[in-house]
């Protein structure tokens, strides 16, 4: 632990205004609402050029030739680069497996793969120039699913794999396979009075962040480059970029620019290397901004999945065993597929007690769009399927679906399928009780004295029903998500905290490389600093690579890990401040010798509240600064054959009750209400907590009823890369979302907090599906549900 010698258990109360537990306002909130916030796409530099990427028009093909001459001949074009122009022998990158070419070499493996890049003095010129590049393709058969990927004569998406998964996968077109075996399922199945099987399909969801990929690369005098970028993890980008650019990491400087949402879609590199390559080649600043169409090709999506489940239960409602097989389509490049497999398998049973399990999850290499991180990360697909199964088993047993879940709900002490004990509160049954206990929304809310209010009906303003065909349904679901990076990953964060007196006032500065992507991390950092250091004024330094890594803004981990690092650094600063105080004033008051001194409201105080000195006087002209790394408890990898191992840091639980109204004749759905109960351990910023829960809930609703990237099964080309045809919920699709927040502390975590951002995305989808099944009586084994599935017109 970097925090050796730091005082522990000195967490301060809320006597300092704006500390943890208060809903302080976000510094970026008003700017974003009023349109004044500077996003990365708003950046401008004198004399800058515009970069453009030429992408493949086919999914799988050999590149016969690339002719850039016409592009180069266009006035205003400064550079055109292909694979052959890359400066070093490192020409691939990747989060875990470096299998992604910076620019296509000899072959393209998916629709929209970068083939060449152009820099020109006008974005239009750059686009035109890219269009003039002639690429001759020789098309290859496409691999689109498990059958085509593992067929005896299947073309290998990647030849000569050397990654560390190749040794244990059954086929080179499988990125990673994780079995999890505990107990004896065959034996347990014999005890089952009912056995329920199901096959489920999960569509490809897009993160659909509103700020498209963008950044500005500025060449520097020392031969390096400074990249201003919207990303989720500056240091991960840096580690992947520097070798390709042929620069030492210290010559690649990175500053986070305004991020317009992420949801996992910015974990992988997009235009980072391309912009830097063009800037270094031309000696001029280069800006790249994707438009919406390109953005759909510019980042990975959520893995579509096929899930086969078998659940057994005794007559009295106890689960006997679960068998499942989860096939995730990873697309053309590995991205985060191995870790997604780890999550899908280890969380594949859900928050239930099952001693006998046989789980297998695999991710495929195909020629479909690459898939990787998205909010919920493997746990989402599994939750959709196991919760559908739980309803089916309950129905088979004639039990209430909530009671059946509660009967099998895990609790603190339960062993996961991985053998890992759940060693902090797991109030699964309680969360279900709470959502069920919430008052139901009134029936027929569309009825008014002036006729039907169509906004309250399926179809909304499209005026498709005035109540005809409308049936209400109710459904429940609960889920389990891991928090933080798992499976032995060294998941640390770094924080630098400085304290000094400025203008007669103590001021703290918090400097981390944490990517604020809209989650509210900067707000929470300031709250932590106020609580720990007793200051009113906190400056959040812009995130950049001049400080150590803060890890990724993903896996619901930032408040836990970077928040933990800020807390830790503050504690170290406080110790130093107190040392100065003792040195200067120790002789004036015996309480200075007391170990339990606090910093509160700009003063050093005893735990009894007696003020000993003003911080300003203690600090004088001195500035106290500490930079330190902070780690959560270590995890370990899952055994490759049995899946056993203490792989996860912490779990996060949420439950939903969905109330929907379905126009059964037109197959249109209005989600009336999505009530959520979630245990957050400790709400550092209650308003932000509710915001995260409502946002996650809505994203789960999206994949339930509308969001899907449609890939042509014959050509593997994306059919709907636009917001005209990739639909995300509008405010009229978003129901009221009453939220019931539990705060059961996890003693292992800073302030007892629990990562919160993802859990609500899990259970929202299956709750909506369950409600639609309840309304229609249909089986519905795929999501999203489209009107044709509800009307027999698919």
């Amino acid at each position, binding site marked *: 632990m970097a925090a050796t010698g730091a005082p522990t258990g000195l967490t301060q109360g809320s006597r300092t205004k704006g500390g943890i537990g208060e809903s302080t306002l976000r510094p970026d909130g008003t700017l974003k609402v009023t349109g004044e916030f500077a996003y990365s796409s708003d950046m401008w530099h004198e004399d800058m050029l515009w970069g453009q990427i030429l992408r493949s028009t086919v999914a799988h093909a050999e590149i016969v030739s690339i002719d850039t001459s016409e592009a180069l001949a266009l006035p205003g074009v400064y550079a055109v680069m292909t694979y052959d122009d890359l400066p070093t022998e490192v020409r691939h990158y990747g989060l875990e497996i470096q299998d992604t070419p910076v620019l296509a070499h000899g072959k393209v493996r998916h629709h929209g793969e970068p083939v060449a890049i152009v820099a020109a003095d006008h974005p239009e010129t750059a686009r035109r120039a890219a269009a003039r590049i002639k690429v001759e393709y020789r098309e290859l058969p496409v691999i689109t699913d498990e059958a085509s990927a593992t067929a005896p004569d299947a073309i290998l998406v990647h030849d000569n794999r050397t990654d560390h998964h190749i040794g244990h996968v059954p086929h080179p077109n499988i990125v990673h396979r994780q079995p999890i075996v505990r107990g004896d399922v065959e034996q347990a199945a014999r005890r089952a009075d009912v056995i329920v099987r199901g096959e489920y399909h999960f569509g490809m969801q897009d993160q659909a962040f509103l700020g498209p990929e963008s950044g500005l690369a500025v060449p520097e005098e020392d031969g390096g480059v400074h990249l201003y970028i919207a990303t989720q993890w500056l240091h991960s980008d840096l580690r992947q970029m520097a070798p390709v650019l042929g620069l030492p990491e210290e010559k690649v400087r990175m500053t986070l620019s305004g991020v317009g949402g992420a949801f996992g879609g910015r974990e992988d590199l997009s235009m980072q290397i391309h912009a830097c390559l063009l800037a270094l080649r031309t000696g001029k600043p280069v800006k790249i901004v994707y438009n919406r169409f390109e953005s759909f090709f510019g980042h990975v999506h959520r893995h579509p999945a096929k899930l086969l489940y078998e659940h057994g239960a005794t007559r009295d409602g106890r689960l006997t065993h679960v068998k499942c097989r989860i096939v995730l389509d990873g697309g053309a490049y590995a991205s985060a597929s191995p870790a997604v497999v780890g999550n899908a398998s280890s969380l594949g049973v859900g928050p239930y007690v099952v001693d006998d399990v046989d789980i297998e999850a695999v991710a495929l290499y195909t020629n479909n769009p690459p898939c990787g991180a998205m909010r919920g990360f493997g746990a989402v697909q599994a939750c959709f399927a196991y919760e559908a199964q739980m309803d089916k088993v309950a129905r088979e047993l004639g039990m209430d679906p909530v009671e059946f879940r509660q009967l099998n709900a895990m609790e603190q002490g339960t062993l996961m399928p991985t053998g890992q004990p759940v060693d902090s509160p797991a109030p699964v049954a309680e969360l279900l009780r709470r959502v069920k206990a919430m008052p139901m929304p009134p029936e027929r809310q569309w009825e008014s004295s002036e006729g039907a209010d169509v906004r309250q009906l399926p*179809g909304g303003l499209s005026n498709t029903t005035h109540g005809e065909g409308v049936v209400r349904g109710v459904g429940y679901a609960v889920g389990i998500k891991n928090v933080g990076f798992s499976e032995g990953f060294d998941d640390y964060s770094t924080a630098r905290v400085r304290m000094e007196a400025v203008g007669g006032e103590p001021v703290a500065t918090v400097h981390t490389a944490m990517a604020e992507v809209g989650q509210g991390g900067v707000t929470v950092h300031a709250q932590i600093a106020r609580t720990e250091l007793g200051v009113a004024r906190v400056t959040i330094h812009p995130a950049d690579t001049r400080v150590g890594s803060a890890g990724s803004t993903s896996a619901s981990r930032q408040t836990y890990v970077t928040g933990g690092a800020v807390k830790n650094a503050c504690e170290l600063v406080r110790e130093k401040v107190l040392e100065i105080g003792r040195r200067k004033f120790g002789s004036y008051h015996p309480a200075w010798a007391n170990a339990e001194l606090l910093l509160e409201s700009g003063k050093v105080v005893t735990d009894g509240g007696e003020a000993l000195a003003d911080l300003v006087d203690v600090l004088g002209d001195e500035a106290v600064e500490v930079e330190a790394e902070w780690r959560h408890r270590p995890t370990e990898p899952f055994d490759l054959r049995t899946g056993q191992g203490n792989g996860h840091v912490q779990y996060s639980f949420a439950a939903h009750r969905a109330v929907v109204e379905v126009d059964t004749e037109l197959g249109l759905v209005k989600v009336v209400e999505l009530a959520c109960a979630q245990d957050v351990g400790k709400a550092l910023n209650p308003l932000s907590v509710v915001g995260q829960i409502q946002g996650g809930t809505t994203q789960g609703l999206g994949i339930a009823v509308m969001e899907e990237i449609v890939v042509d099964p014959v050509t593997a080309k994306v059919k709907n890369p636009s917001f005209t045809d990739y639909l995300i919920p509008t405010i009229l699709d978003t129901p009221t979302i009453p939220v019931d927040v539990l705060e059961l502390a996890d003693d292992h975590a800073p302030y007892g907090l629990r990562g919160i951002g993802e859990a609500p995305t899990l259970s929202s989808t299956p709750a909506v599906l369950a409600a639609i099944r309840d309304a229609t009586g249909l089986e519905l084994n795929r999501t999203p549900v*489209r009107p044709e599935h509800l009307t027999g017109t698919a």
Partner: protein
Amino acid sequence: MDFLRPASWEEALAAKAEHPTAVPIAGGTDVMVEINFDHRRPEYLMDLNRIGDLYAWEVGEDSVRLGASVPYTRIMENLRAELPGLALASHTVASPQIRNRGGVGGNLGTASPAGDAHPALLAAGAEVEVESVRGSRRIPIDDFYTGVKRNALAPDELIRAVHVKKADGPQQYSKAGTRNAMVIAVCAFGLALHPRTRTVRTGIGSAAPTPVRATAAEEFLNAALEEGGFWDNGKVITPSVAKRFSDLCSAACNPIDDVRGTASYRRHAVGVMARRTLTWTWESYRGARRATEGAA
């Protein structure tokens, strides 16, 4: 790309005659998307925003003359009584921002089968007033749509206004989409009762290469209403008549499978919307009749 900014309608016509490939732009809600994505790069873009006449409407004895650029928001707010079907359709167009800019002229100019105004215009019975330096003419809406994203305009003609018959009976409009707002039509249906002529007109969107009327369905319904004396007795339309009408509307579709929906769903949904809108309009007609009788 040259940007033409005629100050008057006459200048616009002259410019269009001189540059027949010029693409007129008013609200820009369609054209700008195409330009931004570089899908279309016309040699000349003709900005019609300076021509105030295009933003005006006149309510006449029998019809409304609606300037081509009157934004959908204005139609919703000001012409609900005269053009109820078109007002309902306007409500379903995109977002408030788009409705503040876009107008019927753009829908007609693009002539996409998914244009929200078309089914309402077909059902109400409209004429498109087009003009060139050669003169002015009115194209009946039934003859206006000539193919996928094609219309009956000559290269030198501009759309000046639409003449829509004032509603003489209830009108309805429904649009099926996979989202509850801001959604492009999977399919749409417009229905207008015309008690004065004792006829019913329909319009179908996004379920054929062009917006179409369900002519056979209209003829069937007109005959059935006449035969049963429904216009006079105001009886409830029998379920079998509604069902037959609905089936004939489905049969008028010639849809495709695409990313927005299946052909089979479109046919089905048009049938459902036809039956529902018929019920709504007929109930409204009966209600109005009863009210009149009560007053008398």
